[in-house]
């Protein structure tokens, strides 16, 4: 049974019981706090990015809240991270059968507009696959605790910022689909993904599969 199976029995802790609505509220509050380009007098024009994002909606959702848990939530991600990932897909620094062809025709301007659009959207919380569909993910409190402890030990927030809100080119990972988080951490560990200049490989090398699962629960709980 997958650790992300929505049916997995778990201990219920009243104070940690989460409702889908709460997750959205928290995530939205964080997005407004951390992700909006800070201090900018006027935000960028989101309309060009919104139009271009229609092409991406099939996998990532119209507002970047993907319902397919293999694909990351882009809503509320830092614009700098989104831009650099598109650039890396196009150049081949980051490899993906889906994203390499998708990024290939994009100009720098396209990438910046897409990045600005998704960064301005509100993340609606992590989901987990259930059959062909997905349902809101309920993190396991014990795993959340274990993941929190591991993240403190590994000093994640020195780069990802408090509450994993992300800053600049270091992504927001709070509220991300756990299956996606697990795959990325494993890919960093095995050097299948190296476009971060190796920092995450150095971090992930000492993480066990169990650690990675726990971290995914913790991040999903934020």
């Amino acid at each position: 049974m997958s650790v992300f199976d929505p049916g997995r029995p778990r201990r219920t802790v009243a104070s940690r019981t989460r409702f889908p609505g709460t997750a959205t509220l928290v995530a939205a509050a964080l997005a407004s706090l951390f992700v909006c380009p800070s201090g900018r007098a006027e935000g960028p024009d989101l309309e060009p990015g919104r139009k271009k994002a229609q092409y991406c909606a099939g996998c990532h959702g119209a507002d970047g809240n993907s319902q397919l848990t293999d694909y990351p939530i882009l809503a509320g991600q830092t614009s700098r991270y989104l831009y650099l990932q598109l650039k890396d897909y196009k150049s081949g620094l980051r490899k993906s059968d889906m994203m390499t062809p998708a990024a290939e025709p994009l100009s720098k301007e396209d990438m910046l507009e897409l990045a600005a659009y998704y960064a301005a959207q509100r993340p609606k919380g992590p989901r987990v696959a259930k059959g062909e569909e997905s349902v809101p993910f309920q993190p396991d409190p014990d795993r959340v605790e274990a993941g929190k402890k591991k993240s403190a030990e590994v000093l994640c927030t020195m780069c990802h910022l408090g509450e994993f809100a992300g800053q600049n080119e270091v992504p927001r990972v709070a509220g991300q689909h756990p299956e996606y988080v697990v795959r990325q951490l494993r890919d960093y560990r095995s050097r299948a993904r190296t476009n971060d200049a190796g920092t995450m490989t150095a971090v992930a090398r000492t993480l066990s599969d169990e650690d990675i699962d726990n971290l995914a629960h913790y991040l999903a709980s934020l």
Partner: protein
Amino acid sequence: MKQSNRVLAYGTAFLAIALSGCATTSGSEKQGGDKEVTGTAGEKPSAGMQTGYAKVPKPVSQEMLNAALGDDRNWLHPNKDYTQTRYSKADQVNTGNVKRLRPVFVFQTAVVDGVMYVTTSYDHVYAVDATTGQELWHYKHPMGPVTTYCCGPNNRGVAVMGNKLFLGTLDAKLVALDNKTGKVVWQTQIADPEKGYSETMAPAAIEGKVLIGTNGGEYGIRGFVKAFDAESGKLLWTFHTIPDQGTEGVWATQDATGHDMHRDIAAEKAQLAKGRKFETTLGGGVWMTPTIDLKSRTVFFTVGNPSPDLYGAERPGDNLYTDSLVAIDLDSGKYKWHYQYIAHDVWDLDAVSPPILVDAKDKSGTVVPAVIHGGKTGYVYVHDRNDGKLIRFSDAMVPQEGRWTLPSPKGERMALGANGGVEWSPMAYSPRLELAYAVNLVQPMTYHVEPSTYPDGKLWLGGAFKTIPNEPQTGNVSAVDIHTGKIAWQVKTEQPMIGGITATAGDLVFTGEGNGFFKAYDAKNGKLLWSFQCGAGVNAPPVTYMVDGKQYVAVAAGGNTQIDFKRGNSVLVFALPE
């Protein structure tokens, strides 16, 4: 609470409080949303102040800036004066009465005679009445579309000179603000934020010039200190912390304290012979405000780590002038001398805390002009100010076992963690007691290396460092006799210490902790005399000033993202009861 009409009578006392090392990420005003914050004080300002007596900040002359050390009323420079002692001659609050210290007001977002200038994360500046907390104006920097910075969206304060304030920003701009209105007078782009340049330091302002360094050692920048014309913003000179030639240095095998660094010099020389250029990506950020000796017209500053932090194979040589104390000429920006603490650093144990000018005994016992620095290595280094020669280094303030074990892919433990020792936290020096005061982190870590090539604007550590399960992380407050290098007293703290410390003629030292406690110690012996719970991490250096004959002590409780201490957004100001 002050009488509203009395405030007008004062000259302007400036306080540039820096939320040093503290990313105050919890307040919405920090994020530059649409909401303008209108200075809410713990005590409401009287109606008279709000309507009839708008206070006008006064200009600050060069004479005032030069005489700042002897000025017990004002706190004009980020670290008190050009020599950066963080020592105030104000002695109204002293070892006898400090236990009666009470909060006067809490400014929720941002305070001097009093106008206090407070900066917050994401480059906001507040001008506030230093006795009541009433806000006079608020500047919110319109951030550019691209920012690239390490270690949190911090700002460590402004420089003041004449009728202007000078602010460095995360998008690598230098902004001059009118001190009366907070309006922009001019701004200039210092360097390219896409390449990892950013500003969190308080600049130094002197004789019509503004001096500022740069962050970016985690991104493969080429570090510098630049001087700009205070009237126009025009660049006057640039000193590169990575010289055009000779970064390989002398192939030092030992650090400043004589410990072997386990370099493979032959392999480095072979790599250098390949001829690959790396000077423009070698790092060497200058994180903190430079120190200025007016007599010899010299600027002193510390230079940060080489890039990438942990992977040294492709940057052979000593990597000058990284991890060094450097002296340059104030007027021309030309090199005078440097002293490198760690050559070819692969641990990020660099030099960041600002230097302090003191008079110290040399090895023969003669008192000479000296400059001291508290290292991430956990030592206080005492140098001859004229040539940079190391006179002595102190007893180690933190455990050192395993030092200079080379990082490996699986990780290697050292008792000395990558945050220090003394991080950015400025030290203080009491000329009365001839003691230097430092706050330290004790965080054993493992150091991990991962080969990596220049990633062009992305974080470039070449590895990672991690704390160790079940090894406690603590800190300490240390007083060091600069004439002998002996630790005069040391108080252990339950958490690592990051922020800063301030000494006064009342024989007190003030410093805060991540757990929210702001404390006063007897500067002679470290006895705890007073503490106050501020509700969020006190991870900023305190300041003290006098308004209308009354001494105030102020500190920001903003927390810290580096160590993940509880964030807040308050400045707390204390005084003795009437």
